[in-house]
């Protein structure tokens, strides 16, 4: 007989203008993995933030092991044995692993910190749950996967037996995801109960005992993993039938229009992360670059688009040597760029939607004359583009920062995909977007390809790469470890290439 360890009973939470959670109920049994599924903005994070004491519910009750609880801050939640691993890790990069773990729950000897005891306890926890961490490493030097282990140990260090994992797999490679599932299962075997938030259906089915689906702040369905399929869950999440496969015809590639030869570039810290990369993209094809993040993809894209100096090699586009041209000149050649970091490089959040839509063209005769902006032409253009790209907002004059991530991305896409376009460089185009927006962006990319645009797609999502690409290159330590036709590519083979840079690693391991 299993006990209910956590009960959320008819909880409602409103923010100014938005009902984030309405009458939401949820129970968590001891030793179970309960998946919380929903699109961005469905209210998953709001719900768990209330359980973790960061928000206070307007109405409703939260019960831990049968007792009503009222949390003033997350310290109270921690005291009740609740631990949370946030989607954006709540770690301090300049602190060591041990310092991060003990912060707020310090081990002391007299008035001073007792790091030796802390280290011993961390080692013991690491051993018990199979979470290898080095207490003396600086967190900023760790890989994302290691940082996640630190977050888990941090929660376990506080004797948490209810663990909330908010999108824990978003940052992991396929191989790391499998390892992570192993850890999660071993945690439940040792009596921990887990709320697992995600919007990746494949994972839900792989790991969940029970599933609760949220849409627009309400519970729209509850089921077990056995009783669900990817399609049924997706339809519940979005509220309509979702088409998974990206419909596309075979590519009809033309001549190479992007030629990158021996490109080298450095990251912000001066380390060479693009190490002599060659790639060709033909007109009318999507060339996908897969790879674990941090293998030089960011620097590659920035170097190609003129945002980062190349320290060696050359970039040719449409027959011109554009190495170290500035971004505007490259843009005027007919090269569009949808950057990875939308808020930093893609938009000016404080500007209106209309101004963001003409950021690359405001100086054209159509939109300004003798140094004065033609506001009516800009607004007319904005209205047309918002219609065409299905940007949902109160109006073109609203500040871009008021839009959801998906709508912001549509604004970037609308701006970049309009005009005389020959080449598109696009990085992580659907990161953080929900199923509906992903569908839309994917269709736009394929439509461009069919018009003869050469598309260079960089994505950490293997599914996305496989769905869109005609050819796939796997980036490993600054160059392409292999290039394959999408038709011949399998998830497993690509995953192996991403992890090891070689397709024969398993053979070697088996020997």
């Amino acid at each position, binding site marked *: 007989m299993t006990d209910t360890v956590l009960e959320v009973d008819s909880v409602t939470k409103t923010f100014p203008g938005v009902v984030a959670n309405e009458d939401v109920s949820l129970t968590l049994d001891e030793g179970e993995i309960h998946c919380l599924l929903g699109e961005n903005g469905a209210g998953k994070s709001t719900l768990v933030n209330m359980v973790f*004491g960061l928000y*206070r519910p307007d109405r409703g009750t939260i019960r831990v092991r049968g007792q009503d609880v009222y949390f003033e*801050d997350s310290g109270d939640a921690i005291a009740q044995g609740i631990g949370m691993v946030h989607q954006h890790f709540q770690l301090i990069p*300049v602190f060591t692993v041990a310092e991060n773990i003990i*912060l707020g729950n310090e081990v002391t000897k007299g008035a001073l*910190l007792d790091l030796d005891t802390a280290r011993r306890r961390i080692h013991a926890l690491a051993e018990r749950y199979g979470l290898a961490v080095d207490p003396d490493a600086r967190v900023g030097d760790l890989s994302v996967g290691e940082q996640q282990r630190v977050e888990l140990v941090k929660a376990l260090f506080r004797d948490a037996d209810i663990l909330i994992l908010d999108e824990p797999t978003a940052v992991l490679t396929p191989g790391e995801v499998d390892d992570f599932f192993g850890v999660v299962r071993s945690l439940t075997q040792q009596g921990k109960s887990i709320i697992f938030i995600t919007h990746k259906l494949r994972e839900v089915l792989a790991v969940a005992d029970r599933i609760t689906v949220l849409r627009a702040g309400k519970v729209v369905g509850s089921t077990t993993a056995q009783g669900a399929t990817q399609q049924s869950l997706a339809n519940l999440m979005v509220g309509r039938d979702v088409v998974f496969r990206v419909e596309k015809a075979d590519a009809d590639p033309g001549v190479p229009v992007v030629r990158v030869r021996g490109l080298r570039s450095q990251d912000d810290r001066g380390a060479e992360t693009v190490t002599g990369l060659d790639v060709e993209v033909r007109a009318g094809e999507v060339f996908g670059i897969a790879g674990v993040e941090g293998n030089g993809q960011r620097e590659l894209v920035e170097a190609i688009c003129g945002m980062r100096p190349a320290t060696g*090699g*050359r970039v040719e586009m449409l027959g011109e040597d554009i190495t170290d041209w500035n971004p505007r000149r490259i843009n005027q050649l007919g090269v569009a760029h949808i950057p990875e970091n939308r808020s930093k490089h893609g938009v000016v959040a404080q500007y209106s939607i209309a101004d963001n839509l003409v950021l690359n063209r405001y100086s054209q005769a159509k939109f300004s004359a003798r140094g004065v902006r033609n506001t009516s032409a800009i607004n007319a253009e904005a209205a047309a583009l918002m219609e065409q790209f299905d940007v949902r907002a109160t109006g073109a004059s609203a500040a871009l920062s008021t839009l959801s991530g998906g709508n912001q991305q549509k604004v970037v896409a609308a701006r970049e995909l309009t005009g005389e376009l020959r080449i598109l460089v696009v990085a992580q185009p659907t990161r953080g977007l929900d199923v509906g927006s992903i569908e839309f962006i994917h269709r736009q990319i394929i439509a461009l390809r069919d018009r003869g645009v050469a598309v260079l797609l960089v994505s950490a999502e293997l599914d996305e790469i496989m769905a869109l690409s005609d050819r796939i290159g796997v980036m490993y330590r600054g160059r392409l470890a292999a290039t394959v036709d999408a038709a011949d590519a399998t998830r497993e083979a690509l995953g192996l290439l991403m992890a090891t840079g070689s397709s024969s690693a398993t053979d070697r391991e088996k020997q």
Partner: protein
Amino acid sequence: MTTLEHASSLAHAPQRVRLDRGTITSLLFGLLGVALIAGVAPAIDSTTRRFNLERPPDPAGIGFHPPTWIIAISVFYLITAILGFSPHAARRWAGLSRVLSALGLVPLALVLSLALSDNAGTNVTNLFSQSLVLATPLALGATTGLWSERSGIINIGIEGTMLASAGVGYMTYAVVGEASATGWLWFSILISVLAGGLVAALHAVLSIRFGVNQIVSGVVINLFALGLTGFLRSEVIFRTGNTSGVSTSDVGLPLLSSIPVVGEQLFRGGPIYWMMYLVVFGTWLVMFRTPWGLRVRSCGENPHAAETLGINVLRVRYQSVILGGLIAGLAGAWFSMESQGGFEDNMTNAAGFIALAALIFGKWTPWGAFGGALLFGFSRALGTRLQFLGVEVSGFEIPSEFFQSLPFVVTLIVVAGAVGRSVGPAAAGAPFQKSR
């Protein structure tokens, strides 16, 4: 095909020597070395000069020939330049040689100044102890900034905090203690400290409670302190007639101060001067060895992470900023009740800003900041010393204003060039809002 060959030759080219901050610095030292050997050393007066270790008459000391020393230092500068531009292995030493070269500027300046003046010698022990004394308000001010910024609140109001507490403290001394009784002196120093805490509390409320831009709040405090103390001086202190008073008396460390020749000069100083060491050590101990220090640092780096661990970020920031203010109050008391007994308008004279430079120089660590304070204290002491030496270049006496500007020139060079990248607490300057 030629483009391909071109590409591959680029790909395999050895790394070029770049003109970055390091190599440019090395180059400048090299040029200085050449100029000294070719131009200065042959022309300089070669009569023996002395570095004295104690006060006259008949001080112990070290005699030297200026040209020899200048050539020795110049040769080292040439080596620095060569290391900076040498390929591969030797470049490892380039960084160290640049630091040593920068330190070499000190003996170089002393040797040159002595050679160019009519004085046969100068007391270097005294110069060093003066540097320590003048570093006192800088080290305390930098510690103020350290507490504030490590918790996430930028504080450029250190100058104003010190000035206000200097004024309020001395006013108390003048009014209630008639600027003479020792008991009242200590009481007034305490008032100074509390006044510093109060001004910092104002900064804390403005920037934490009301989310005012922290730079603006700091500027306001600096201006407010100038006006307030000017008013107090003319309207209160002047009217008591106690415009100057008895300051704290020096304390010698037992045993150490009786070391022959140098002990009396190095191990004797005012009580606030000695407290400065305790404050720096205590700051290091609390900030890096206690739970509360760990929390303070976490609030300055990632307040959201701290919040998720149940830490009350706002409270920690109030505590830390106000603690810093108390330290600035002690620095204020040093100005008006230790270094001299009395208050003058703007008597802190930009020490609060130089303290900030020391903080940056020290990369936001207590001992680093102390090192920075020492550097700037030395440059101030050296500036004063050189004024008295009467340095002449071909019959033209270098004006004293030049030497008075020395600390600021050194600040500029150090912060812009020699330190390299110094990264402060990540969340400093960003207002934090508690989750609801």
